[in-house]
């Protein structure tokens, strides 16, 4: 045994690599195929599933088998889980503000970078 490393059983890396390449092709082909879909909900669903869903699977495969997180000690997994929890907290805390377009204490145009269509207050709301 080499004294410089912690030996462990290795999976078939070539098989994992080929699987990752197949997933890469799916993640490119899916959104291109989706452009032919007329239904907006189906289009968004297909793009999200093939681009981000497959991306998530690829990332999980790299983390688990290339970075060996599947056999890593618990403290590392907890460390990463805490970091991801903070990211979710960031999104949950800030998104309601960023994605809000109107409110009592807001300017009419909260984001001066883009010109949003102004509301015509003389017309009754439908």
């Amino acid at each position, binding site marked *: 045994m080499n004294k410089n490393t912690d030996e462990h059983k290795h999976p078939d890396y070539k098989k994992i690599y080929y699987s990752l*390449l197949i997933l890469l092709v799916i993640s490119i082909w899916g959104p291109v195929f989706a452009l032919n879909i007329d239904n907006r909900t189906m289009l968004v669903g297909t793009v999200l599933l093939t681009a981000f869903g497959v991306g998530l699977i690829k990332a999980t495969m790299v983390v688990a088998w290339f970075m060996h997180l599947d056999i890593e000690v618990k403290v590392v997994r907890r460390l990463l889980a805490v*970091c991801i929890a903070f990211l979710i907290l960031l*999104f949950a805390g800030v998104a309601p503000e960023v994605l809000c377009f109107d409110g009592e204490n807001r300017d009419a145009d909260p984001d001066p970078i883009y010109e949003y269509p102004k509301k015509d207050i003389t017309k009754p709301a439908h």
Partner: protein
Amino acid sequence: MSETYHPPLATSRKSAGLPTARLGTWWVVASEVVIFGGLVVSFVMYRMRHGEIWADQASHTKLYAGALNTFVLLTSSYFAVCAHKAAEVGDGKKAANLLVRTILLGGVFLCVKAYEYTSEILAGYGPKADLFWSFYYTATGLHGFHVVAGMVIMGFVAKDAAKGKFLHRVECIGIYWHFVDIVWIFLFPLFYIASGL
């Protein structure tokens, strides 16, 4: 000095259940998760806010270049993990050879990125063209910086590995490199293939 004294070497101190060098690498990765994660989360929020405007901007990025770079980084990750496997059995020369291949692929990635930057800036899509492009250059630039850092460190590790020294570092630089690959796996759909939304 007592006979039971152990020097605080990165390979021998295992108070957390894993070698200190690897624990340190994971700490680096954890801090990087927050850095890149914050950037990605902010991008997603603004992408949701500026839906159609950003969809139009995203359609100007080059899908084929992004796809080629994803292929390059996945292949480099494969070489990095094979280098780790070689180092584990004490084959330093093979590990060094595989690390050099990883470095070369990192160079290919940067060349493709340089081509992309040049063509986009010449087409008028510079960092100040739009908030989308500010995010694009910040995220991909920061990622590119990490690729350069990884290549430099990997060069030193490969040099030692070729002499059969510090082989535990092959795994550590591999973990870092795989993380860089994962960041790109998320940046790729965000900037290149979600333009249809």
